[in-house]
Structures are given as structure tokens and as C-alpha cells.
């Protein structure tokens, strides 16, 4: 689990914000004009929500080294908290509901992060399952959380910011994009700050970190809190901008694993990695179903699709763990370097 060093002496000296700024300009300026509603609804919205969840989990697992299988629980906590703040607090703007929802998820994250003070690795991962089961159970059991709807289903409120409605696919895309961009920028600042260095120090050598005076317990809980905040907000995007109608069962253990796979495939301890991983996880099933339908026709029904998806994904994860433990990001950097090198030597 080492961070990726992206410095390469012969790379052209563009400021490092060039690529993100160009991407953002494209995402804001071009995509809304050319995108189809399928692109937004089936690809970009889940991609943005899962990327943000991946960024959140990467802070905890990739940087601070604390393995968690509770991500879906924090997404659910965020989604249901935002729903209730929006429903029950008169006059609270949408942004207020989202921030408060993030804080609720952070508080739950701290509580379920307490075992990390004693447990490590596999044992910690198992203990975070408690969050997964508890939150899902509580949301199903107490119908108050879903305003007494049947089986805990909630409908997202209309999205609007400063009176400007964002209900269409493009509006929801811009809403999600903005939140993801802001939180990703802050996450990037965090991991390159002293606190981010402390996360990595605790991950790489906890005893040495304690000896040089890093407040280990506080820092671990902080990692849980920040990570859960971000994942909670990702849950709000998932529920409000992407699906619009969610139930607690949509945030099950499968979802937690999905987010863990995103950061493993994309690259641990890399902010970009979460986006690479989420892109693969979102696009891959769509591509597989197209390919399967093309090759096998009607034989390739949803049952076969589901099964083949799991098999291929499982194989992919094993391959990555063995061949490219630093994930798609490392692969990408290597390819880019090769291309640059080839380009320069011609």
C-alpha cells in the first residue's frame, strides 16, 4: 500500500492542476450539451456518487490504513439523514440538509471506528460489519426514518439550489458534479496536509507514529469521521440525484464491497484512483451486457449477466491484487509515461 509517486523527471512541466481544470471545464461546459439522458442516468450519476464514496473510503483505508466494510451503512446514514432533515426542518436549504447529513454519518463513523483503537486489519474489517448490519436494521425497523412509508422506501425531494430547480437529468448531474468536485478538492488538500501525513504514518508504522508523538487514537477517529462524512454525502447523491427512490436494502453489504473494490482496482491511497475504479465498476456491467447480448443473444438473460459479472469482477480483483497492487492509477501513469517517452524520442 504505497502511495504513487507521480513525479517523472522528463514529464512536461505543466502545473499539476492543468488536467483537473481541463476535465472540469469539459464536464461543465461540454458534457451537458452533448450527453444523452442515458449517459447521465445510467453512467455519470452513479459514477459520480460511487467516485465520491471511493474518495471517502480511500481516506480511511488507502491513506489511514483502516479497513472498513461499512461504507454502504454510511451512505445509507447520509441519505436517510438528509431526507429527514429536509422533511422535518422547516426552511432548511438543501445544502444545509446535506452538510448535516454528512455530520450524522461522521458521528456514526466515529462510534463504529472506536474498535479501531484496539483492532487491526481483518479483525477491524469484521467489526465494521457491525455498522453495516446495525444501520440497515435500524432503518428498516424504525419506520420513523422513512416517514412511515412501506418497507422503508424514501422518495427524494425536488432538488433546487437558491430557487433554481435541478430536476432534469442535466440539473441533477450538475448538482452531483459540483458537490463531488468541491469535496474531492478538499480531500486532496487534506491528504497533502500534516493530517494526511499523520494518516499515512499510522498506516505504515503505528509504533513509530506513536513514538514521534502523532496522536494515534485521535487521528484514527478523525479518519473515520472525515471518511464517513464524505461517504455520507455520496449517499445523498446516490439517493437524491441518481436513484431518486431508495430503500435500506439498496445499501447492503454488496454495496460496501463494491466501494472497497473501487479503491482496490482504482488504486489505494490515490484520490484519482477512486474515479478510475468507479468508472470501471459502472461501465463494466453495461459493456458486459452489450457484449453478452451481442454474442449469445437471448441466452444472455439477466441471471447469466449477474453471474458472469461477478465472476469477471472477482477475477479482475484477484488479477489487480497480484499484478498491479497500486491499481489502475499506476497502470495509467505507466502507460502515459511510455507514450510520453515514445513521443519524445521520435
Amino acid at each position: 500500500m504505497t502511495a504513487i509517486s507521480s513525479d517523472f523527471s522528463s514529464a512536461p512541466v505543466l502545473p499539476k492542476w492543468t488536467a483537473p481544470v481541463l476535465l472540469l471545464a469539459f464536464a461543465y461546459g461540454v458534457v451537458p450539451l452533448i450527453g444523452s439522458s442515458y449517459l447521465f442516468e445510467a453512467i455519470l450519476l452513479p459514477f459520480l456518487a460511487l467516485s465520491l464514496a471511493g474518495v471517502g473510503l480511500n481516506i480511511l483505508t488507502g491513506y489511514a490504513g483502516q479497513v472498513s466494510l461499512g461504507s454502504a451503512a454510511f451512505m445509507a446514514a447520509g441519505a436517510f439523514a438528509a431526507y429527514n432533515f429536509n422533511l422535518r426542518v422547516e426552511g432548511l436549504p438543501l445544502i444545509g440538509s446535506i452538510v448535516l447529513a454528512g455530520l450524522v454519518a461522521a458521528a456514526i463513523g466515529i462510534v463504529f471506528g472506536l474498535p479501531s483503537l484496539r483492532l487491526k486489519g481483518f479483525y477491524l474489517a469484521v467489526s465494521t460489519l457491525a455498522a453495516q448490519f446495525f444501520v440497515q436494521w435500524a432503518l428498516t425497523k424504525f419506520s420513523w426514518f422513512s416517514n412511515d412509508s412501506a418497507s422503508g422506501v424514501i422518495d427524494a425531494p425536488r432538488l433546487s439550489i437558491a430557487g433554481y430547480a435541478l430536476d432534469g437529468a442535466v440539473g441533477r448531474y450538475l448538482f452531483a458534479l459540483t458537490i463531488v468536485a468541491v469535496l474531492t478538492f478538499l480531500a486532496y488538500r487534506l491528504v497533502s496536509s500534516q493530517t494526511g501525513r499523520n494518516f499515512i504514518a499510522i498506516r505504515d508504522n503505528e509504533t513509530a507514529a506513536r513514538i514521534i508523538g502523532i496522536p494515534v487514537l485521535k487521528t484514527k477517529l478523525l479518519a473515520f469521521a472525515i471518511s464517513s462524512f464524505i461517504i455520507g454525502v455520496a449517499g445523498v447523491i446516490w439517493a437524491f440525484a441518481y436513484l431518486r427512490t431508495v430503500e435500506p436494502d439498496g445499501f447492503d453489504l454488496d454495496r460496501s464491497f463494491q466501494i472497497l473494490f473501487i479503491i482496490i482496482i482504482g488504486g489505494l491511497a490515490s484520490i484519482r484512483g477512486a474515479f478510475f475504479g468507479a468508472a470501471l465498476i459502472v461501465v463494466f456491467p453495461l459493456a458486459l451486457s452489450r457484449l453478452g447480448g451481442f454474442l449469445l443473444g437471448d441466452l444472455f438473460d439477466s441471471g447469466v449477466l449477474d453471474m458472469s459479472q461477478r465472476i469477471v469482477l472477482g477475477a479482475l480483483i484477484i488479477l489487480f491484487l497480484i499484478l498491479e497492487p497500486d491499481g489502475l492509477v499506476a497502470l495509467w501513469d505507466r502507460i502515459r509515461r511510455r507514450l510520453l517517452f515514445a513521443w519524445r524520442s521520435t
Partner: protein
Amino acid sequence: MPLPSYALGVMEASVYAPEVLARGLPSALPPAQPSEGRAGLAAQAAPLLSLQGIGLSFGGVVALADIDLSVLSGEIRAIIGPNGAGKSSLINVISGVYRPDRGHVLLDGIRHAHVPTQRLAHLGVARTFQNLALFKGLSVLDNVASGLAFKVRSNFAGQVLGIGRSRGEQRDTLSRADQILEFLDLSPVRDRLVGTLPYGLQKRVELARALVAEPRLLLLDEPMAGMTASEKGEMAGFVRAARDRFATTVVLIEHDVGVVMGLSDRIAVLDYGRKIADATPDEVRNDQRVIDAYLGVASDNEDGAGI
């Protein structure tokens, strides 16, 4: 991986003369025990560190048995002994990694049954580890900067937004880290991931991480293990220079008896968890028990060639 030419054995320890040491080093030293001066005066003052009746065992293995040890301010205090003698255990007790079964540690006149590891840096104690304990995912600079983490007072929100005291702190941390890197001749590898450096340089980064805190007591567990002779000479020069520059008291574990004899003021010899000698290098060299237990064995291998 290409090794920069400066890296190994180019500079001799003697290069670290006053010109080098005087330039650009952190100015504000925490006053080393205000009532005491440096080594010369220290003899009649209370020791900076003393261990009293330390006992430690693991299951049936007695790692330390009734150890007394005093370390005076400003001295380089070596601990030697054969493998498994309990040297590392002793440093682990001093730094609170182990809790002794018996006895206590007096640090700066304060008595600890178990030294509080989490407060160690605040107590002015820093250490290195026998097996490298660097943060592999961080650059050399960030590893060294992490040695100042205990001083950070800004919170994460201030750091993320770049407001409040965080900016000044960050600048201060990096400039101190840079000064130490320069002092230990590590500036050229400043931005490398620490795991990509050769072993000898990693050992030196660990020394830098400990030194950047400007500790009053520096515990070094085999800082020269696995080094070539010229690297050892360099490292010995750095240890001495660090003591002279920062008025740091050093506790040093080292197997190379030649290096130890030349570097230390007093030497304690451990064998099977017991202290069998504690004296100046010359006295230790001629002590029959030490020769039987350790030096006699050591002279079989080239490490002991200095004797």
C-alpha cells in the same frame, strides 16, 4: 536504480566541521536542563536519565535483570553486548514500548513505572529502531517533517482551508526538516519516496526524523547495522556532530566495537539481560568478563577487528 554519486562514502565524517555545522541550523534549541551545562559540568549534576532496578521477562525468557543505568547530560552512552543480551529491550523500556516488570525509569528527575510513549516526544526523547521504521508511503522530506508532528497545533480544517496558524506551521515544519536534511547531507534525495532509497540512506533518514525534533535524549538502536565501513564512519560523524550541535544526549547500541570505542564516553555491557560492566572505553576494553562474554567472541569476526 541509479545511485547519486554523493550518496555513499564520498564525504568523510571529518568534513562535518564547524563550517558545515554552523550554517542554517534550527536556532531555537530547547534549553538542555537549565541548571546544567554540557558534558563537562554534567558530571556532578543529576543524570538526565537513570534506570533503577529494571527487570523484564517474556514468558520464561529474562530479557533484563535488575539493570541500573545512568546517563549524564551531553554524553554519548553506548550499550553493547551479544545478540539477545537485552539491548533493544532496554531502549524499548526507556521509550515506553515495553513496560518493565520491575524497577522504574527516571527521566529528567521524573519517575515512570511505564514511560508514556505517546508523550515521549514532548518529554524531549526521540529514537530510531533496529529494523527500519520509516513511513514507506511518504517522501524523505515528509518522513522527516513527521518528526515534528507532536508540535502541530492547527487542526485538520485549518490545514485543509489553509487558514489560521496552519500556514505558518507548515512553513516552519518544512524549513526545519530541510535544515536537518542538509545537515545530514540528504537534501538531494529530499523528494524521493523513502522506500526507494538504499538501506544506508534510509537509516540516515530515520536519524533525521529523530533529530528534527531536537530531542534532549536520542536513543539509537544499531544505527550503523548493515552499513559498509565508510558509511559507518559517516554515520559516526553525524552522531557526534548531532551531539555537539544540539547538545543532545545519546544512548547508542552498536555491535561494531571499533566504532563504539571511538565514539562513546561511557559503555555499559549487557550479557543475558545482566549488566556485566559499565565504564570508560579503555576500562571496558581490558575487562576480563567483557572479553570473555563479548569481545572474545567478537574478535572472531571482522566486526571486532578494532580491538
